[in-house]
């Protein structure tokens, strides 16, 4: 095994960027787990919807496929992110309504939720594979921004898309942290994740808070999706699968149900998987990423920060 230390810098930067995106997706898994105690296996489809919606609205309807600069660029980027966020958020709320609430009303067993989630995920994903929607191939995401070098760190170039990812994700994480710790909605979500019955008997409207949780988790997933599509330049019907499984791993790594854990887990997983390239080569990165999950479950099943939502 020979390590190519020259790759340390670039893989670190790449890992960090990917890790930021994983962190944003992982929030959705962890928040839903917090309130419902179930892994939302349809979150990958929720993720996909965001990027696809931005592709449709910006690229197809408005036909904005040329690069922007200056204020125009900022406006169109905000539009891409907000469209992505809102679309995924709507998708997540729809998912809760169609796939989870009927089960909750009937007090279904845990396994039913799991099956329902997987079914919903397949349904949504393959729906977009149909030719009246995305079709089976990759579709090019509108090139609203050119890739330019922004600055250099550790001997590795960070381009303007990287800066966009870092800034967006940090803003999202700060917003979420404040939402969870300093608002009524946040307190209700935390109360619910600690004790559903007690929360309801203290006046928390459980259904409304669950919908909120899906909406918030979906929103961040959609923003992550928009960033992901911008970064890689295309959207495809199954684009949610790999990032979804990775983000789920990240959520477990940090401690499922724990919001700060999801952020930490996402960053760590992005770094681990990318930096493994330094010694093992490209083809190993997914192997390394998915070895992390069973290792974590064996060594510390509650994750790095343990299972609890909020601060």
């Amino acid at each position, binding site marked *: 095994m020979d390590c190519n230390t020259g790759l340390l810098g670039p893989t670190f930067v790449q890992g960090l960027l990917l890790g930021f995106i994983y962190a944003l997706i992982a929030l959705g898994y962890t928040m839903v787990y917090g309130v419902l105690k179930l892994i939302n296996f349809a979150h990958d489809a929720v993720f996909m919807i965001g990027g696809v919606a931005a592709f449709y609205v910006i690229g197809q309807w408005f036909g904005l496929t040329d690069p922007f600069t200056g204020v125009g660029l900022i406006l169109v980027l905000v539009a891409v992110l907000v469209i992505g966020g809102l679309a995924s958020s709507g998708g997540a709320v729809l998912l809760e309504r169609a796939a989870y609430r009927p089960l909750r009303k009937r007090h279904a067993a845990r396994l039913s939720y799991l099956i329902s989630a997987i079914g919903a995920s397949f349904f949504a994903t393959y729906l977009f594979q149909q030719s009246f929607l995305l079709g089976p191939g990759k579709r090019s995401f509108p090139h609203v921004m050119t890739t330019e070098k922004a600055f250099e760190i550790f001997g590795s170039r960070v381009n303007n898309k990287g800066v966009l990812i870092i800034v967006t994700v940090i803003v999202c994480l700060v*917003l979420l942290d404040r*939402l969870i710790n*300093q*608002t*009524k*909605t946040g*307190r*209700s979500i*935390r*109360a619910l994740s*600690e*004790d559903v*019955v*007690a*929360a*309801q*008997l*203290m*006046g*928390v*409207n*459980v259904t409304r808070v669950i919908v*909120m949780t899906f*909406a*918030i988790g979906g929103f961040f997933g959609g923003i992550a999706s928009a960033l992901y599509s911008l970064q890689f330049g295309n959207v495809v019907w199954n684009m949610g699968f790999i990032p979804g499984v990775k983000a789920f791993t990240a959520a477990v790594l940090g401690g499922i149900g724990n919001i700060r854990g999801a952020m930490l887990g996402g960053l760590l997983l992005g770094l681990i998987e990318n930096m493994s390239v330094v010694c093992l080569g490209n083809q190993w990165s997914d192997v390394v990423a998915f070895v992390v999950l069973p290792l974590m479950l064996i060594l510390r099943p509650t994750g790095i920060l343990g299972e*609890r939502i*909020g601060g």
Partner: protein
Amino acid sequence: MGTILKVDKVTMQFGGLRALGDVDFEIQEGEIFGLIGPNGAGKTTMFNCVTGVYNPTAGSVTFDGVAITGKRPDQIVEIGICRTFQQIRLFPNMTALENVFVGVDARHKTQILGAIFRSPRHRREEREGEAKAMKLLEYVGLTRFANDLAKNLSYGDQRRLEIARALGTGPKLLLLDEPAAGMNPVEKNGLRDLVRKIRDSGVTVLLIEHDMKVVMGLSDRVAVLDHGERIAYGKPEEVQKDPKVIEAYLGSGAGGNAASKQSKQEGA
């Protein structure tokens, strides 16, 4: 002073088990009402019927003239009933202040968009809510634990915190499920004073309690349940003399304190 809570022929059937059968009682505004009875008599089941955890098989519960049977627990909180739990159910990983804040939030209107854009109402409600929660902590004597996680409080303090959290929802009727369970004599005295203070502030109290000294000393009136039936109803001193109560609850020939020696646990 009118009737605040009317329990009318409430029956709760779990499969073959009749946990409550045609139970009637009325609570007057401003009184402390005791609900007593041996283990498994159906006291907590009655609490669950009043607070919306269970939907009674038959009968109705009316609060302030409004029928509340069939409503969701959070709707009943909004109407003005809140409770504590026999087995403490705080939010263990939230601070004492946040626990009370969740209760206070029941009266808050801000939705998520208001919170994101920091609307004036959101800011006012956050400010006022925190002040109110702090005041309630002071009211039950827990000010210095405001920023401690609920799970780190002592048992007696956790019971007080549950009361503060319930008061946070602004109830007209407060249901206390064995508030003195597990408390030492000093804590029990403090609790008695607290319950009276709550009543004097204008909140009606419905109390389940095993400790006869606590319940008889505090209650204006009591109802006694046994095997899901109401066997006595009236002033504590009358009820204590009722042969049926002595027979069923205290055990024939037993003294007034025998009941408190019984186990504190009762299935919900």
